[in-house]
């Protein structure tokens, strides 16, 4: 049994069958990559996991509990965080505040009425946020308004926000898209480091095969809304069906 069990999930948008009949099992403490051409339904699948979309059919179990019928904030509180394909950050707030908010959410739950305390007196939160920003090399940008960051920095910030929650399952939707090579390598190192430090399961969607083969322990290939194969990176590399359906096209 994996920590995440997706069974027979289907999702239709009007006439388009975005997800056919998806079965996916992600083992605890592994990095599981989902690859496939554009429009394969990868992002749609993640949307079904975090309550952004409700699948038409099938079931999604996380940690032995169904996520279907739960609100997005409840699913996050179960331990799932997601980095989006286009960065979702608090643009009007500073980098530092962006990282503090998820830490507050982790500590205090979905709602807490702390209207009279001062943010700057919350030592444990500010220190954790500083440590997190240090880990992603953004401490010098802590007072910058998040909307004015570069695309790569926005992605790194969003990753820091998700990691600061210490989720059980981290979903990453093309985390290195639009990043320079050096930043991509830093991201790989950061994820490896996090992985080595503590128990975390990751599901990562990625087009950059360098990233995929550096991190993944299992790979699922998705095409036109259905999983084609699931195997180890070594086997996927040599798989004729995959080369034809995806790798050949991407390179």
């Amino acid at each position, binding site marked *: 049994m994996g920590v995440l069990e997706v069974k027979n999930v289907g999702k239709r948008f009007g006439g388009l069958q975005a997800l056919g009949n998806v079965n996916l099992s992600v083992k605890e403490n592994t990095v599981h990559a989902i690859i496939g051409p554009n429009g394969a339904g990868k992002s749609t699948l993640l949307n079904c996991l975090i309550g952004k979309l409700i699948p038409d059919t099938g079931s999604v179990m996380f940690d032995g509990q169904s996520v279907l019928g739960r609100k*997005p904030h409840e699913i996050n509180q179960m331990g799932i965080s997601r980095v989006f394909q286009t960065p979702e950050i*608090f643009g009007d*707030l500073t980098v530092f505040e962006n990282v503090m*908010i998820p830490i507050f959410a982790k500590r205090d739950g979905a709602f807490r009425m702390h209207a*009279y305390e001062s943010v700057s007196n919350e030592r444990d939160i500010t220190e954790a946020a500083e440590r997190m920003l240090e880990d992603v090399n953004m401490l010098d940008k802590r007072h910058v308004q998040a909307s004015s960051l570069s695309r790569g920095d926005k992605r790194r910030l969003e990753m820091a926000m998700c990691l600061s929650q210490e989720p059980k399952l981290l979903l990453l939707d093309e985390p290195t898209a639009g990043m320079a090579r050096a930043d991509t390598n830093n991201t790989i190192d950061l994820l490896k480091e996090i992985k080595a430090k503590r128990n975390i399961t990751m599901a990562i969607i990625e087009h950059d095969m360098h990233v995929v083969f550096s991190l993944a322990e299992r790979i699922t290939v998705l095409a036109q809304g259905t999983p084609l194969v699931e195997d180890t990176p070594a086997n996927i590399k040599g798989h004729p069906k995959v080369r034809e359906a995806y790798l050949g096209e991407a390179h």
Partner: protein
Amino acid sequence: MLGLNKKDGTLLLIVIGLTLFAPFLLNPFPVESELAQFNAGYPDLMQRFVIFGIFAIGFNILFGLTGYLSFGHAAFLGAGSYAGVWMMKLLSMNVIPAIVAAVIVAGLFSVLIGYISLRRSGIYFSILTLAFAQMSFALAYSVLTPITGGETGLQLSLDDPRILTGGAEGGNLPVPSLFGLEMRDSFDLVLGSWLFTFNVGYYVCAIIMIAAFYLAIRIFRSPFGMMLRAVKSNQQRMSYTGLNSRPYTLAAFVISGMYAGLAGGLMVSMDPLAGAERMQWTASGEVVLMTILGGAGTLIGPVLGAGFIKYFENIFSKINDQILHGWFAFLPDGLENAMVALVHPFIGKGWHLTLGILFMLVVIFLPGGLVEGGQRVGRFAFRRRNKKAEGAEAEGAAKQPAE
């Protein structure tokens, strides 16, 4: 100071200074002078400055922080007013029960309206709040006449029970007071040809406004305030971060409703009469204007906006053609009449036109309101002073404090 950082502490001190010395600051012109009509230091107007300041400070906690634009906040001010008058009819003329009841009733009322309206966001939320407020206005005007006094409004009468103090003594209506200190009491200070009026009611309102302002700073700087700004910035991200935005917005809505109720309670503590028109959409729109004009989302902006609009309403509307003729008397007759005719639409009843034009100019050129205007002026002055003092070298340094 009081758990505030240096910048916020300074701001609080400025507000305290301005409100406590308002009787001097607002009466800069000698009584007999031509310009005396621009004096705003009379009790009635000063009370309105701070009461509407409270209203706008509270409104800003909802609109400025979360971005939810309510068009119905006058309903809470009205509910607070009715509650306040009822306390004076039933309990005593002491303003404390009236103010407390006003805040509580407005708070409960805003839980109800907020709970329903916050199911939608954006324009739909605004329309819902507007609809609820107009409904309250219509009800207060008609069906609820036994509670609200309908068209005539709710007022004191001689046969009110006032169980804590007994009925009216003698044939006069009692007046609101704070443990014997009457709200209408004033002390006049004559200095040469200047006259300064210190009114009890004004100082009661002023001290409450300072407390309300302090509380607003605390809310702005609290984790709760940060969450409210997160709602405005990206509600999607908020829910995928494990936060439920609904209770946050509802709490902000109720807090701002209670501020409105407090303003209503103070209004009837100064003048114990509550009418339904206080709930009308024009009154709701006014606080929106005050907040935007002053600078939504800033601490001091709403107070400035409230003062600005109330000053215009009371001073500009008093200027009439006769006064204009006085001003332009130095011109030849034909030109004098032409000038008076030109300025005429902007004064007296036309003050709305002047205010409207000013509002448009501010929104177009200073989206951050009067506060942004002040900051720009400050930055400009700072840069010039630095250039003079230290030459080009100081340029880099000048940028930092401006941020």
